[in-house]
C-alpha cells in the first residue's frame, strides 16, 4: 500500500493536469515507447474519445494506430483479443461501461479466460478502457459503474483511478501488464470542461512516464477513528466528508482502493484494525457487489477489532433514475457519508 503522501514526496511536481489529460498522456507515452500499442473504439479518432481519453492521439499517431470502429463491440473487442494473441498490445475502448451487455461474452468468457484455458501458454496483453458513473442525469443506461460485475468474474484485473496522478500511472501499468486489465474512468473525475467543475479532478502529474501499481490501495487521507473504504469519484465524496467530520472532531481515514482486482485486502484490514470502524461507499448497486466484499474482508480479517457493525452506502438496488432529485437521492454524497460516519461513531 502506497500513501499519497509518499507519492507526493517522491514525485513532486508543479505540473497540473486534469485526469482526462493525464490518461491520454499515459496512453501517448506508451504508444511512443511501444509501436505494438494501438487504440480501437468508437469515436476514439477525430473525436478524441467522448470523454477525452484519446484526445490528441489521432494527430500524433494517425489512423493506423488510432482506429475508429463501427458500433460492433463484440466484433472489435473480440478483435482486440485476436490482435493481443498475435503480437499487438491493443487498448479497446467501450464508450460507456453500460454497453457491456452487447459484448460481455468476449470480455468475461474469452478475454478473461484464454490465459487460464491455455494453462498459461497464451498471454493477452490488452486493456479495456471504459467510462463509468453518473450524477449528470444521463439515466439508467449511461450512468452505471458496474465494477462489481467485472470484479466478480475471474481473469481480468479491474482498476478505477480517482485522480490525475493515478490515472496516468495506472493506464501505463495496465498497458504494460501482460494480462487483460479493465480500466474504468469515472466521468466525474476526468475534469471535463462540460461537466460540473470538480477541483479534485485536476492535480500534479509528472511529465515523465511512471507506474502506479495495480492491486495496491492508497490512503487518500489518514485518520484514526473510522475507515472509509471507497473508489473512484466516491473518494472525492469521502474526502469532502472527512473534512466536514474533522470539524466535528472525528478523524476519518479514507482508503482509495484504486484496484478491485486484485483487491488490496491487507490495506482494508490494516486500517480497520487501527480505527475499529468501517464504512464502505460505492457508486455501484448495493447488493452482491463491492460493499459486501469489502465488509466481508474486514470481518474475515479484523473481526475482533470491530467496535460496531460495518456500514455501507451504495445505489439502493434501483436502476439509475433520470430526474435530478431522483438520481441525487440514490447516489452517494459527502452528506450521506458524514451522517453514516456519525451514526457509526454513536
Amino acid at each position, binding site marked *: 500500500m502506497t500513501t499519497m503522501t509518499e507519492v507526493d514526496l517522491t514525485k513532486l511536481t508543479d505540473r497540473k493536469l486534469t485526469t482526462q489529460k493525464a490518461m491520454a498522456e499515459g496512453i501517448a507515452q506508451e504508444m511512443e515507447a511501444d509501436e505494438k500499442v494501438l487504440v480501437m473504439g*468508437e*469515436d476514439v*479518432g*477525430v*473525436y478524441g474519445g*467522448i470523454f477525452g481519453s484519446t484526445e490528441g492521439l489521432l494527430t500524433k499517431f494517425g489512423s493506423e494506430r488510432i482506429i*475508429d*470502429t*463501427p*458500433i*460492433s*463491440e*463484440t*466484433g472489435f473487442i473480440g478483435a482486440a483479443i485476436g490482435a493481443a494473441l498475435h503480437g499487438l498490445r491493443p487498448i479497446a475502448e467501450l464508450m460507456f461501461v*453500460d*454497453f457491456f*451487455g*452487447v459484448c460481455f461474452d468476449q470480455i468475461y468468457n474469452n478475454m478473461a479466460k484464454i490465459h487460464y484455458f491455455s494453462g498459461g501458454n497464451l498471454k493477452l496483453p490488452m486493456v479495456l478502457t471504459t467510462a463509468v458513473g453518473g*450524477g*449528470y*442525469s*444521463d*439515466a*439508467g*443506461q*449511461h450512468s452505471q459503474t458496474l465494477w462489481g460485475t467485472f470484479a466478480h468474474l475471474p481473469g481480468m484485473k479491474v482498476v478505477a483511478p480517482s485522480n490525475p496522478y493515478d490515472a496516468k500511472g495506472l493506464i501505463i501499468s495496465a498497458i504494460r501488464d501482460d494480462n487483460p486489465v479493465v480500466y474504468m474512468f469515472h466521468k466525474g473525475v476526468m475534469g471535463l*470542461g*462540460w*461537466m*460540473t*467543475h470538480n477541483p479534485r479532478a485536476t492535480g500534479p502529474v509528472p511529465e515523465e512516464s511512471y507506474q502506479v501499481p495495480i492491486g495496491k490501495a492508497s490512503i487518500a487521507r489518514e485518520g484514526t477513528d473510522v475507515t472509509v473504504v471507497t473508489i473512484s469519484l466516491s473518494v472525492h465524496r469521502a474526502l469532502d466528508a472527512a473534512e466536514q467530520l474533522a470539524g466535528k472532531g472525528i478523524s476519518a481515514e479514507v482508503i482509495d482502493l484504486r484496484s478491485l482486482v486484485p483487491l488490496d485486502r491487507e490495506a482494508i484490514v490494516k486500517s480497520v484494525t487501527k480505527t475499529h470502524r468501517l464504512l464502505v461507499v460505492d457508486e455501484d448497486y448495493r447488493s452482491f457487489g463491492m460493499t459486501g466484499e469489502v465488509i466481508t474482508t474486514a470481518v474475515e480479517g479484523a473481526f475482533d477489532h470491530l467496535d460496531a457493525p460495518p456500514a455501507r452506502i451504495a445505489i*439502493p*438496488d*434501483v*436502476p439509475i*433514475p*433520470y*430526474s*435530478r*432529485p*431522483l*438520481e*441525487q*437521492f*440514490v447516489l452517494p454524497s459527502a452528506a450521506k457519508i458524514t451522517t453514516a460516519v456519525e451514526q457509526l461513531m454513536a
Partner: protein
Amino acid sequence: MEVPNDHLVWMYSTMVKIRRFEERIREIYFEDKLPAFDIAAGPIPGEMHLAAGQEPVAVGVAPHLKPGDAVTATHRPHHIAIAQGVDLKKMTAEIFGKDAGLGHGKGGHMHLFSSEPSFGCSGIIAEGMPVAVGAALAFKKQKMDNVAISFFGEGAANQGAFHESLNLAAVWGLPVVFICEDNAFAISVPKATATAIADNSDRAAAYGIPGVLVPENDPVAVYEVAGEAIRRARAGEGASLIEVKTDRLWGHFEGDADAYRTDAFKEGMQTRDALTVFPEKLIQQGVLTAAAIEEIKTRMYGEVEEAIEFARSSTYPQPEAALEHVFA
C-alpha cells in the same frame, strides 16, 4: 402510391411541430448551462440527441399506423414519438424530469415509454430491434393485424442485434418493418469507414426479405415505400427493410462541436432541408397556400409551447420515489 391531401398536410404540419419542438428543447437545454457549459445543469440535464432534419422519416411512416401498432426508436426518438402521436405533454414533462412525465421522471429523453400508442426507445444501439420483432410475434400469435416498426440509425446496422432481428423476423414471417435512418454518421464516424457496403437496404437479401432504398430525405418518398412495406406486413406477407438517406442537421448531441463534418456538408444539408423544400412543393402543387402554412405554424408552435409550459410548471417527483417501480 397516391398520397391523399390530408396526409400531405398532416405530414407537413407534423414536421413543423417536430422541428419546433427540437428547436425549443435545444434552447431550453442550454438554459442555466452556460457560460461554462455544465451538462448536469439546467431544466433539461444529461445528453440530448435531437432529430432536426430527420422529420421526413418519422412523418412518412406514421400515417400508415393504426391503434395497437408498436414502434421502437433509438436514443434520437423525439421525431418518431411525435409523429406517432405520443402524448406531447407527458413526453415533454419526462424530458424535464417531472413527475407528470411518461415515466414519472425515471426514464428521461432516451427512455420514453408509452402504451397507447405503443412506443418505446432506448439508449443502447439496436436494443429496440429485437423488441419490435417480439411485438410482431405477439401480434401474429394473437392473430391481430397490427405491425411493429423498428427505427434505427445506419450505425446500428453494424450491431449484432440488427442481424439477429432481421433473421428472426424473416424466418418467422413476422409483421415488422425495419427502418434505417441513414444520416451518414454515427457520432463522428462516417458510414463509409464503418459499413462495408453503401446501402443497408441491400442487406435485406441476406434474410430473403424486400429491401428498399429511399435515396432522398423526402416525406412523400418515405410515405410510399413505408406504405407498401406496412401493407405487406399487415397482410401477412412478412418483414421488410427500408433505408432512408436523411440528415442530422445538428451535432450528435447538444454541445457537440460537430468538427468532424465539413462546412460544405453542413451547407448541403441546409440547402436540401425538407422543412424548406417540402412546403415549397406543396405550394407549387396547390396543396397549401402561404397563409395555410402560417396557420399551421401558429397551431403547431402553440401545441409545442403548451407542452413545454405543462412540463415547466409540473413538479419534480419526490426524491424517495426513486425507490418505487423496480418491481410491479
